[in-house]
Every structure is written in C-alpha cells, then in structure tokens.
C-alpha cells in the first residue's frame, strides 16, 4: 500500500485509547499504592509486635531469677529498675578454707557443669557462694557475698576434672564463721548489675527501654510512647509495695509504636503511628521461702 494512502488513527480513536489507558493506569497505580501501603504498614506492625515480644520475653526472664528478699533489687521506680541479673552458675569442687581467717581466699569451681555466660567477668560480676552452715538445718542455709579479687585461672579439681580457681573477697556478713560452712558441691552464682529503664537516646526523639550495664547504656526495645514502660511492684500478698525487699511480683506494661507513620486504614488520608501494648506479670522465683 502506498505510504500516502495509509490512514492513521483518528483523534477520537486516540482520545478513546488515551482514556482507556489512563483508566487502566490509574487502576493499576491505585492497586500498587494500596499494596505498597499495606506492605509498609504490615512490616511496621510486625516490627512493633517483635518489639513487644522482645519486651515480653527479655524482662520477665531476667526478673524471674531475682531474689528481692535478699537485696537483689538495688533501685526501682515506675519507669526503671536496677537489679542483680543472674548470669552464670558453677559448682565448687574445692571449697574455701573455713573458718575464714583473712581475705582474699580461693576456691575451685568445676568447668562442667557450668551454666550460663563464660568466661567469668571478674571485674563486674558479683558472686554468691552457697553457705550450708549446720548440716542438720535448712533454716540457716544462705548465700555468702563475694567479689573476685584476681583474674580466674584454670586449675584442676581434686578429682582431676577441669576447673577454675577463683580468688575472692568473701563477705560472710552475719553468717557464723565456722568450719565446714561452705562445702564441696555447693553452687556459686554470678550476677551482673543491670538497669532496665525508659529513656530518650536523643532529646526530642523516640523513647526506648534501655539496658544499662558496666559497659554503658544501649537501646533495647523501642520506639515506645513517652509512657512506654510502666513497672508496678507487689508484695507476696498482692499489695503494691515501695519496699524493694518485699517485692514478690512485678507487673510490666510496655506501650510500643511503629517506627514510621502509616495509614490507619486503607485509603485513609491521615498518617499516624500504630500503637500497641503488652502487659506481663512476673513472679520472682528466688525470694527466700522460710
């Protein structure tokens, strides 16, 4: 067909085609946008839920092992708690010589079994050594406080099994200083002082639950609302208490929000952060029983 005789599209055809294409494109774009927003919201909500899950897992697992009755809680408020967090447990294979004559003293601890964090951090760890006292009574069983006085060194147990030697300053406090009061096989517990509290890493920025140790503070869970962490303390009768030694239960409420603003519903014009909360009750397992 000669070139000049070929017929093009009419204007009407072109307009109709453009209109149809516009409708299809708009629908496609709308669908993509909705999809993208839903995806974004979903990932934000997932992050939020992960945060709350972390809060519901980390804080209770730390607090469960606290012995408030023997002073593990060092400070507490509605938004922060400082306590001794259990980090490791070993078992004595060669006890310190008792009665205690002078510090420092040495003891040997088995390498197996040894539960928890290794190596022992002699700079920061607080030790509790089980005190048997009178074999004939459970009522004088207790824990003697100790602090490492020198780096831990490898040393075999008397039965030649692997062990470590801990040189420490042992503080018996009011416990009778008698022969045989600390026996072979007794557990030794290692603790680290930690603080979990609500804080703002950047002024005017988001709030987080921060974990403070001897190494400093780092954000652990967040972002949270300004009232994102509420701690309530109860004694063994279920009454709110302000006495650190009487705490038997801690209620934790975490109010978290998404990192970014998202549309609350599909098609909504306003953007906002999604907020959710979780409440956990933790019974302290290690308070003195009798």
């Amino acid at each position, binding site marked *: *067909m000669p*070139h000049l005789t070929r017929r093009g599209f009419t204007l009407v055809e072109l307009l109709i085609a453009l209109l149809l294409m516009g409708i299809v494109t708009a629908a*496609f774009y709308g*669908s*993509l946008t909705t*999809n*993208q927003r*839903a*995806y974004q919201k*979903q*990932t934000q909500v*997932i992050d939020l*839920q*992960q945060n709350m*899950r972390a809060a*519901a*897992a980390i804080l209770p*697992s730390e607090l*469960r*092992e606290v*012995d408030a*009755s*023997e002073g593990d809680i060092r400070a507490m408020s509605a938004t922060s708690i400082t306590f001794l967090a*259990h980090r490791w*447990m070993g*078992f004595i294979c060669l006890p310190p010589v008792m009665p205690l004559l002078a510090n420092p003293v040495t003891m040997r601890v*088995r390498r*197996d*079994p040894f*539960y*928890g964090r290794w190596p022992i951090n002699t700079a920061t760890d607080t030790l*509790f050594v*089980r005190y048997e006292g009178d*074999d*004939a*009574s*459970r*009522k004088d*069983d*207790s*824990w003697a406080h100790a602090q490492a006085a020198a780096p831990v060194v490898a040393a075999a147990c008397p*039965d030649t*099994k692997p062990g470590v030697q801990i040189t420490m300053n042992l503080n018996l406090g009011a416990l009778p200083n008698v*022969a*045989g009061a600390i*026996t*072979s*096989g*007794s*557990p030794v*517990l290692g603790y680290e002082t930690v603080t979990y509290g609500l804080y703002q890493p950047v002024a005017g920025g988001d709030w987080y639950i921060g974990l403070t140790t001897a190494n400093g503070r780092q954000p652990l869970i967040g972002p949270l609302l300004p009232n994102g962490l509420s701690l309530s303390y109860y004694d063994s009768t279920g009454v709110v208490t302000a006495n650190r030694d009487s705490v038997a239960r801690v209620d934790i409420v975490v109010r978290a929000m998404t990192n970014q603003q998202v549309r609350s519903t599909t098609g909504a014009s306003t953007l906002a952060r999604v907020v959710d909360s979780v409440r956990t009750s933790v019974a302290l*397992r*290690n*308070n*003195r*029983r*009798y």
Partner: protein
Amino acid sequence: MIRVLRDERGMALAVAIFALVVAGALIAGAFFAGTQEQRVGQNSLRVQQSFGVGEAAINEVVRNWNPQIYNALPIYPADSFVFAPVLSGGGTGSYTGVIRKLNSNLYMVDVTGRDRASAAGQAFGSGARQRLGWLMRVRLLDVAVGASLTTQGDVKLVGNAYVDGNNWIPDGWTGSICDNTDPGVAGIREPDTAVVQQSGPHVSGYPPVLKDPTVADSTFTQFGDVTYNELAAAATIQLPGGNYKSFPTWSGTTCDRTNPTNWGDGLNPAGVCGSYWPIIHISGDATMNGDQGQGILLVDGDLSIQGSYQFYGLVIIRGTLSTAGGGSTEAHFWGGVMAQNATLNLNSLSGHATLNYSKCAILTALNMTGIVAPERSRGWSQLY
C-alpha cells in the same frame, strides 16, 4: 525504501506482565513477611508453652521424688540420674532432664521442657525448648533428737550397758557431714523420771542425764509438719510385729531392695548395700536377733534387742526398749534412739548394749531417706 509496518505490536502484554510481576512481588513480599511473622508468633507461643512444661516438670519431679533412687545417687561427677522423655500432664508436651547429687544433701534438677508440637516434631524448624534448673535441698525430718536416748519413761542400766552422748563417727564412715567436730549431746534426755544405774556409771554426755520437761508425747509423734503415722505410711519396708534377723543381701553389684529383711549395710558403707537406707516400719512388738541395719526404724510397740545387733541411724519406738546380751560387738545403736515408753515401763538396757550418739549417722539417715524441697533462696534458674 518504504518501510512496511507489518509486525506492528502493542506493549499491552509487556506492560501486563510487568504489572503482574510487580504486583506478584509485592504480594509475595507481604505473604513472606506475614508468614515470617506468623512463624515468629507461633514460636513465641511455643517458647511460652515449653517454659510452662519445664516448670511443671520440675515440680512433678519434686512431687514424685523417690529417695531410694535419687538419694542413693553417687555424688557428682559420678553418675547422675537421667530421665528419658516423659509426657507432661495433660499432654501439653514432654520433658527430659537430669538429677545431679551435688553433695550429701543438695541436688540439681536440670529439666528441658518442650511443647507438644515441638516434642512431636511437628513444629517448623527444630521447635522450641526451655531449660530450667532448680536446686533442691533434702527436707530433713524435724526430729528433736538432742540425746543418745530420749525417753518419757524410767531407764534401768545394768551389766555393760552404756549410753554415750559423745559424738561418734562409725568406723569407715566418711564424707563432709562425718567431718563435724560437734562434741555431742546429752546421754539421756527425759522429763523427770528415774535413771537407775547399777554397778557404776553407765551414761556420759553433755550432760549425762538431761531433765527436759519439754519431752512429751509429741516429741515422739510430731516431727515438724510430719507426723509419726505419715512417716510410717511412707516407709520403704512395712512389717508386722515379730522376730526378725536383718542383714544385707545383694546379687553382683545390685543390692536386693525387695528383701524386707535387708535393711542396708552400715558395717560396710562402701559395700553394695551401703547406699541403701530404708525407712522400716514395724506395726507391733519386735525382737531383733541380728545382724545389722541402717536408716530410720519405726516400731509401734516394744523393741527388744537380743544378742549382737547394730543399727545405724534413727530409731523411734512408741513402746519400750530393752536389750540383752550383745556378744563381742561394741554397740547396738549408732545415731539416736527415741523410746517413748508410753506405758512407762522400764527401758531396760543390759548386756553389752551401747547407745552411741552419732550426728553423722543420724544426718546420713535423714539425708538418704528424706524428700527434697527447693533451696531456701536463689535455687531457681533459667539455664541456657
């Protein structure tokens, strides 16, 4: 050259495919994130369930504590008791674990709990598990021994009979609780009754005879929150009244614990039956004609010891204690004897009868027969 547009094609298909790919990627991404979230959520749930299974398991182990098995364990690092997977109550999951004896009275229960789906291999990946530990201390019977012989009735000592409140360690007995340096206790503790000693002194201790008005019926029937009847009901060996001769029996390296007259081997603490410490309950009058035993002996009626007999541990007699003969053996009892003598008959000790107080024997008997309770504080831990 004039180009003839014969193969004119639109871009609809390409656009449609592109759109489908983009939409598909977004949807797949959303599904992936959703699936991951669902899995993480489910795993969190399983962790919580496993934790619950673990906590319930530890309590179950303590509730079903069998002193004859667990208390007889050698001290770590010798063998520990490993239990095979056990279904937890209500079918909520299962648990495994190990019981380690740390010293004479302290145990570590190390339990790993798994929720039902994880235990059955139905969970995604390897599922969840939670490992918990609890230090257990033997819950000693709260017995006010306080003397080599505690009684409510009169006591008559003749011949070579001797009641000694000094703290004795039986021959061949070792261990931290036998290293104690306690001087001892009273020889005889009684409220205000007569102690007749014929032909010289027959009692020593701190003091030899202690007049203690607090000695009452309850001294022999109530031990803290445990009664005599409860203790008797929990006895390892139940026997009617009668004449008995008890001695250790074993096959190879296995102590025969089914034999009701095998009461352990106090004479050979390192022997096959040296770690067997039964609670023996005799529901009537009993006469012992040899040879030996150890543990806690409960006699509802009178106990008569004829000839040489040795018992290591704690003896509680609701009636009267009488001894005769004794042969060449030095002692009848190592530990503590509590004879209620409720009928106020004479506790008559004659022949070569010796009652030697031994804190080591009493504590070992209590440690080896006692159930456990959680450590007073700091006993619970989450293990990793």
